[in-house]
Each structure stands twice: as structure tokens, then as C-alpha cells.
């Protein structure tokens, strides 16, 4: 078992609790940078896909896992990010300006939408955000002059100071771009978690009444969470556009929103790791399924709804048997080894919580 011997308050503020975890993440990062030399281009593309989903997952995790506000409308923000980025570049802005700006604009759109929507709680909030997902489709069609409507758009080749990046012809370069964005988003997320705003998010999630009594402005904090969440989601959307190579009004559908939410639940709510674990499941499941299908029936029989069905099944199994998601399971396994042979079976059993003051709503 590792024991953290702390000698300064800095120890609790640092990104990594000890040398060991620092080296684990350093090795992970090294592998990530060396990946193009280890695997072929097809799988590199798949890993890129995982990372893009993970960024979107981080975005939703900030809102749902950290602040406790469910959203089924995040596909709409993927779309906003994607279209904004493409339109800004078509207007002549360089990628290096257009891309960050696309995220910021998505965030601002998010804040504007959050002001009325976040007055709702729980299931009502989820329903209101479903409306966003559905509306996005129509709005893209209505704004045809900018968005290209049903026929869609093709993002231009990315150029950063004359350096060209394209998903199909140069997957390695595109992978490094996505990796860089992933690292930046993860760092932002980590930094927020260890600063006052991150704690305010958790406070709003766990008890709005006492958060208010401690001086946290509920509406402003939720708005902030929504904005930041949408910003990260917007970046992911822009990258998704490049990854797909073409997109139209149907690319960012309600199904994408639902997949995103399932992803973070399966991965483990409230943790950065969860977003990545979930993304691996979401991105590799279709491949794994098609491989499995080929093994069972060698013919090209298409089973409609198979993917969705399996997804739903996995989600149900997770909610029943491992509500803390893959990351929660990983923590349990790690603790078991760390404490061996003293780990007890009920160590992670959830305690019944005590009564709460009647909610002052």
C-alpha cells in the first residue's frame, strides 16, 4: 500500500499525488506520442476517434459528473462547434484562431441556453435538453446559407502556419493535433477541479441549499459549468467534423447525445478517467460487434438495431452491478491489490445516507 507522506500543503495541490503516479502518466503520455510508430494507420484512426469522443466526454462529464446537471442536448453543441469552426475558416480565419474561437462561441451559446434551461431540475432538465438536440437538426436546415443545409459541408484542410493536416492522407498529423487538444482539455479540467470553481461545482451537485449558504451563486455556477462544458464539447465537435470529413444536419443527432451520456455513465461519473474509459467502449464497440458477427455468421447479414441493443444492455448491466462505472471497478481492483490480503468485500458498499433538510425549492 502506498502511503503519502505529506510535508507541505503543496502536496495536495499538485497534479500528481506522488512520483509513482507521475511516472505512470508520463509513460502513458510517451506511449501516446509514440503510438504512430507502434500501430498501423487504421488503428491510429480508431484511437483518434477514441480521443475525440473522450474530449466530448470530458465536456459532458464537467456538467453531469461534476455539477450534477444531466444533458441530452450535447450533440447540438457538437454541431455548433463543428459548424462554427468550418464557417470561421471559410470566412478566412486561420485554423489556429478559428478553432479556439469555435469552442468559445459554443461556450457562449451554451451560457445563453443555460440561463432558462438550468432553472429546471433532474428529469425535466433532461427533457428540455432533448429538445435542443431535436431543434438543432431543424435549425441547421433553416440556416442553409451558412450551414449548407441537408447537403452538408466539407471542412477544409487544416493549415497551421503553412503546416498541413488532413485526416485521411495524413492520419499521424491529425492524431497529434487531436492528442494536443485532448491534453489541453484534460489539463483545464484538472485545474478546475483543484480550484474554487471545481469545488463550487461539487457543492451545487451535492446540496444547493448549503452551497447558497456558503456564498455560491447557484445560477451563475451552473451557467459557468454549462458554458465550460459546451466549450470543450464544441472543440470535440470541430474535430469530429474533420474526422468524418463531411457532415450535415443529421450527423449530430439525438442518438449522439444519448451515446455521450451513456459513455460517461459506463466510464464512471465524476472522474476524468471515466470519460476516457467510456470513450474506448463507445468507439470500439461497433468494431468489436462487427468482428464478433463475422465470427458467428460468415455472411454479411445486417441485424438492425444490434449496436443500440448491445449498448443498452451494457448500460443496464453497469447501472445494476457497477454504478461507479469502469473507473469505479478499476479503483476496487486496485484497492484489493493494494490492501491484499486485507480488502473486505463490503468496503465499497454504499452507506445509506442520513436525512436531508427538505429541499428549499
Amino acid at each position, binding site marked *: 500500500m502506498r502511503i503519502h507522506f505529506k510535508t507541505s500543503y503543496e502536496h495536495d495541490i499538485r497534479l500528481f499525488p506522488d512520483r509513482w503516479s507521475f511516472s505512470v502518466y508520463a509513460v502513458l503520455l510517451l506511449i501516446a506520442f509514440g503510438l504512430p510508430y507502434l500501430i498501423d494507420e487504421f488503428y491510429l484512426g480508431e484511437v483518434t476517434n477514441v480521443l475525440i469522443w473522450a474530449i466530448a466526454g470530458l465536456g459532458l462529464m464537467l456538467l453531469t459528473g461534476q455539477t450534477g446537471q444531466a444533458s441530452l442536448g450535447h450533440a447540438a453543441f457538437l454541431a455548433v462547434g463543428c459548424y462554427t469552426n468550418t464557417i470561421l475558416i471559410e470566412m478566412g480565419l486561420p485554423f489556429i484562431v478559428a478553432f479556439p474561437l469555435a469552442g468559445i462561441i459554443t461556450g457562449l451559446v451554451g451560457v445563453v441556453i443555460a440561463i432558462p434551461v438550468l432553472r429546471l431540475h433532474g428529469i425535466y432538465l433532461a427533457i428540455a435538453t432533448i429538445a435542443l438536440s431535436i431543434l438543432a437538426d431543424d435549425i441547421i436546415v433553416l440556416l442553409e446559407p451558412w450551414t449548407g443545409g441537408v447537403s452538408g459541408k466539407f471542412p477544409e484542410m487544416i493549415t497551421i502556419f503553412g503546416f498541413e493536416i488532413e485526416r485521411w492522407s495524413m492520419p499521424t498529423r491529425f492524431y497529434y493535433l487531436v492528442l494536443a487538444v485532448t491534453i489541453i482539455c484534460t489539463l483545464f479540467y484538472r485545474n478546475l477541479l483543484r*480550484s474554487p470553481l471545481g469545488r463550487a461545482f461539487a457543492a451545487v451537485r451535492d446540496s444547493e441549499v448549503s452551497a*447558497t449558504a456558503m456564498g455560491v451563486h447557484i445560477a451563475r455556477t451552473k451557467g459557468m459549468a454549462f458554458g465550460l462544458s459546451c466549450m470543450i464539447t464544441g472543440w470535440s465537435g470541430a474535430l469530429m467534423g474533420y474526422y468524418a470529413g463531411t457532415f450535415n444536419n443529421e450527423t449530430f443527432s439525438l442518438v449522439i447525445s444519448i451515446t455521450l451520456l451513456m459513455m460517461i455513465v459506463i466510464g464512471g461519473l465524476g472522474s476524468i478517467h471515466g470519460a476516457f474509459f467510456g470513450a474506448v467502449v463507445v468507439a470500439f464497440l461497433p468494431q468489436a460487434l462487427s468482428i464478433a458477427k463475422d465470427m458467428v455468421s460468415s455472411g454479411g447479414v445486417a441485424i438492425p438495431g444490434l449496436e443500440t441493443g448491445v449498448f443498452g444492455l451494457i448500460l443496464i448491466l453497469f447501472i445494476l452491478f457497477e454504478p461507479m462505472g469502469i473507473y469505479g471497478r478499476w479503483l476496487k481492483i486496485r484497492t484489493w491489490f493494494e490492501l491484499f490480503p486485507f480488502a473486505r468485500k463490503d468496503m465499497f458498499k454504499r452507506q445509506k445516507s*442520513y436525512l436531508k433538510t427538505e429541499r428549499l425549492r
Partner: protein
Amino acid sequence: MSLLKIENATLKFGGVVAVNDLSFSVDEGEVYAIVGPNGAGKSTVFNLISRFYEPYAGTFNFDGQNLLDRNADEVADLGIARTFQNIELFDHATVLQNLLVGRHRHRKSTLLDQMFFTPRVRREERRHREAVEEVIDFLDLQPYRNKMIAGLPYGVRKVVELGRALASGPRLLLLDEPASGLSVEETQDMRWWIDDIRKQMGITVLMVEHDMGLVSGVSDRVLALADGAKLAEGTPAEVQSDPAVIEAYLGAGV
């Protein structure tokens, strides 16, 4: 000099008068207790001071400022911190994080500062931590520093909640039944803490409590409420021997 001055406060829920034309004032540096039977409106008075409820009538004055001009989240900025009757902690966070939320009103860094975790945020975090550690030392919470609230026993949660309120560095501390559900020993601890909070930290305490032993042990003045109205006010001994109070608790003709 009175720190908190409430005059003619009235609150109605529909036809029910929860607080009826209540006036009292809390002096700087004293421990002031509110007692009364269940449903007397004690917690409601707290919720009025925290601005969770909008009063029907009355004036609320804190240190020369009108409390009614403030929203619920701005009350903490004035230096009023509170605990809740049934414990309202952030269950999925550690004790340390809970206490740090108490420092929320002292933050100065901007969103961008926090996203990049600039040296300024780092310095500020260290200061918050120092303040929180003082509270941890004061309340003997060292063994629980990094424990999740969800796994803590009731008595400890009660203390953590007191700690969170103290971490905000208040001038007025509102304690809603600080000893409810505590063992005799824990209640005794709570008594010393309340004494020390007043004497060492110079914080004014306004509390609601049923345990008359605790009330008469620590408080300078006691206000007895019944049906939202003032029944008696004075030293603990005076209030306990007041015929109206005895009648409200035990019924007429005793």
C-alpha cells in the same frame, strides 16, 4: 452593541403564520439561543436570516446593513455562516473539500486564472488551506481530513458542518440544533467548542437548541418561541422559570 437586529418579522405560508411579529436583537460577542416546542418557528427564523424565505413584513439589520437587500448567496459575504438541522454537507467530497467550500467567499481568482492554475491561484489555495487547517486543529478533525463525507458517522458530520461554517471566517454563526443526535460526550465537546468560538475567535453565536443543559451552559440570553411569537426572553434561568414557557412546554395548570 447589537450585531443582528430583527424587528417585527412576520412570515406566512398561506394561512399559516409561521413567524408572528417577532423582534429580537443579538449583541456582538454573545451566545444567543432560541428555544421552543416543535413547529414554533425556530428554524424558520434561521431561514429568514439566511434569506431562503422572503419575510411578509419586518426589518432585518446586520451590522448596520439591511439584510433584505441581499440575496441568499450574498449573506455569506456579510460574514454570516450557518449549519443545518439535518446536516447539509457535500456527500461526494472529502472533509477537506467541504471545508474549503467554506472559503468560497474569500476567493479572488478569475475563471482564466483557475483554468491555467496560475501562481496566483496556487498562493490563494495555500492561504485557504492554512485557514482550513486551523479549523481542523480546532475541531480535532485530523483523522478525517481526506475521508469522504458519505462514509462518516453522524457525530463527525455534525462537527464537519460546524467546521465548514467556521472556515468561512464569519462574524455571526447560526447553529441549527448543534447537539441534536449527538451522544452526551459529543454534546459536551460541542459545548466547549461553542464557548471557545465565542471567547477565542470572538464570533457571535445564534443557535437553536432543544438540549436545555447545553443552552443554559453556554448561552448568555435565551429567547423562547411558541407559534412563531416571542414567549419570553432573558437569561437561561429566567426563561426556564417563566410561567408562560412552562405552560407552552407542559400545558396549563402544572
